[in-house]
């Protein structure tokens, strides 16, 4: 660009209408210390700063000031002094303002060699800085790339480890499921067995109940009676009507159980029966029994209601069904 073109670009620059490359070329020209362009720019920048005054003023919301002051108080640091700022996408105010009022000394000196030297130094410095910046950037990028690669590898290893662990857990889970299934089957089988055992137990209970209902046999009763420690025994001897007859009578005073074993008693005539008496103050019927033809022995088990007072026992022949008091002949008799 010729100087004339650059001078014509001043109002466009101030209005913000230049293309980026044109703007950069113009700024480079300003750095060369062109006094005429600096002077022109000073005026046009002043025009630009005045343009907003031509707008109809609109006041911001009243609450904005309080918000702004409060937000400012939240800032970690008060006004910066030399902190570095990140690069901004557009012209920094400082960048623009740098040319509002250009440095006067280079423009006024008029010393061309000094200006050329300064400009050369600036260009060399700029080139060196750019080169150093590029190399530093490249080196920094390489380091970052290596760091990313290392992180990627590390993450891959971790991922593989996690995948292995996941597979292991899935396998364990499958085994647990299989085990649970098996245990469920076992449990079902055990349940069937329990049901079967319960059925068997019910049968046994029923059998036991049936057995209990049938009652104990005489032998059972004798066995029980013989195991009682303080069992009492009474020997019965035959009277005149049955000299060859005899018997033994065992009883337990605690349970009031009595067991009679009689042998060689004559056959009961028709319409009669033998009746056992416990004799205390008066005779008390214990029970009746019958001796049929051909029988030589008989066992009787009874419960005595008033046993404590009994001192003698006797068996008489009475009419069928027995009598409240002895009326017939005594066949067997014994005393405690």
């Amino acid at each position, binding site marked *: 660009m010729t100087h004339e073109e650059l001078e*014509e670009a001043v*109002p*466009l620059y*101030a*209005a*913000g*209408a*230049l*293309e980026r490359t044109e703007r950069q070329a113009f700024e480079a020209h300003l750095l060369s210390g062109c006094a005429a362009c600096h002077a022109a720019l*000073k*005026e*046009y*920048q*002043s*025009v*630009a*700063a*005045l*343009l*907003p*005054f*031509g*707008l*109809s*003023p*609109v*006041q*911001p*919301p009243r609450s*904005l*000031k309080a*918000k*702004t*002051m409060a*937000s*400012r108080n939240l*800032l970690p*640091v*008060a*006004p*910066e*002094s*030399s*902190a570095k*700022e990140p690069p*901004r*996408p*557009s*012209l*920094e*105010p*400082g960048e*623009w*303002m*740098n040319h*509002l*009022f250009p440095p006067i000394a280079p423009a006024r000196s008029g010393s061309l060699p000094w200006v050329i030297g300064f400009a050369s130094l600036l260009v060399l410095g700029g080139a060196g800085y750019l080169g150093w910046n590029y190399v530093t950037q490249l080196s920094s990028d390489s380091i970052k790339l290596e760091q990313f690669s290392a992180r990627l590898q590390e993450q891959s290893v971790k991922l593989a480890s996690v995948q292995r662990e996941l597979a292991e857990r899935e396998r364990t889970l499958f085994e647990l499921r299989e085990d649970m299934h098996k245990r469920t089957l076992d449990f079902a089988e055990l349940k069937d067995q329990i049901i079967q055992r319960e059925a068997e137990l019910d049968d046994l209970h029923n059998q036991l109940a049936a057995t209990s209902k049938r009652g104990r046999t005489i032998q059972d009763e004798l066995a029980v009676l013989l195991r009682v420690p303080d069992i009492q025994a009474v020997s019965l001897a035959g009277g005149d009507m049955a000299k060859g007859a005899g018997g033994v009578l065992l009883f337990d005073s605690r349970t009031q159980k009595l067991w009679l074993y009689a042998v060689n008693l004559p056959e009961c005539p028709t319409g009669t029966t033998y009746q056992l008496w416990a004799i205390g103050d008066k005779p008390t019927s214990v029970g009746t029994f019958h001796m049929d033809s051909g029988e030589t022995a008989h066992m009787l088990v009874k419960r005595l209601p008033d046993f404590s007072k009994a001192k003698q026992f006797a068996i008489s022949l009475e009419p069928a069904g027995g009598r409240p008091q002895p009326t017939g002949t005594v066949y067997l008799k014994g005393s405690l």
Partner: protein
Amino acid sequence: MSSPPRHATFTIDPALLARVVKGDQQAFSQLYDHSNTLLYTLALRILGNREEAAELLQDVYLEVWRKVARYDVGRGTPVAWLVTLTRSRALDRLRDRTGRGPQYKDSLDGDAAARMPDLGPSPFETQADQELRVLVGQAISALPAAQQQAIELAYYEGLSHMEIATKLNQPLGTVKTRIKLGMAKLRDTLRTYWEQGDVT
């Protein structure tokens, strides 16, 4: 209780910024009072949305609070620094929302008042501010509409002269000439103001 001395927005004392640099909250509050209407108006003109403009203005002031140490009185007035910062950030935001233009357009001509309600002078707008507003408004109104439009598209919408030429379907040279002539006329009209006040 005496109120702080008022300064015209365009003549904000650089000493006020020097106090802000030292963390003076009262100075920051005064800076806000003196400049918020101008900067909000600018942001609203560029973004066309009140909420977005308010959000941007908050960001701008926070940036001012952080970067005020960078301000160099030898390189420009406080208001020029604030205007430049606000315009730059608003255009950044405008470019960020691709495919979405401003919701309404103000212009540099006299029709602006019809579309943007004039709420009257700000409580902090001084007589000098009002006079300057009238002066700048008259200077802009005196421009041919084509020149106003070209400057407006560059300044408030951040378009380059090539983009403006494409948008208006005009030759590039024509657009450049319009901007140059318009800016030159404004310079000639307004020069007396800053030369008298030596405000630049």
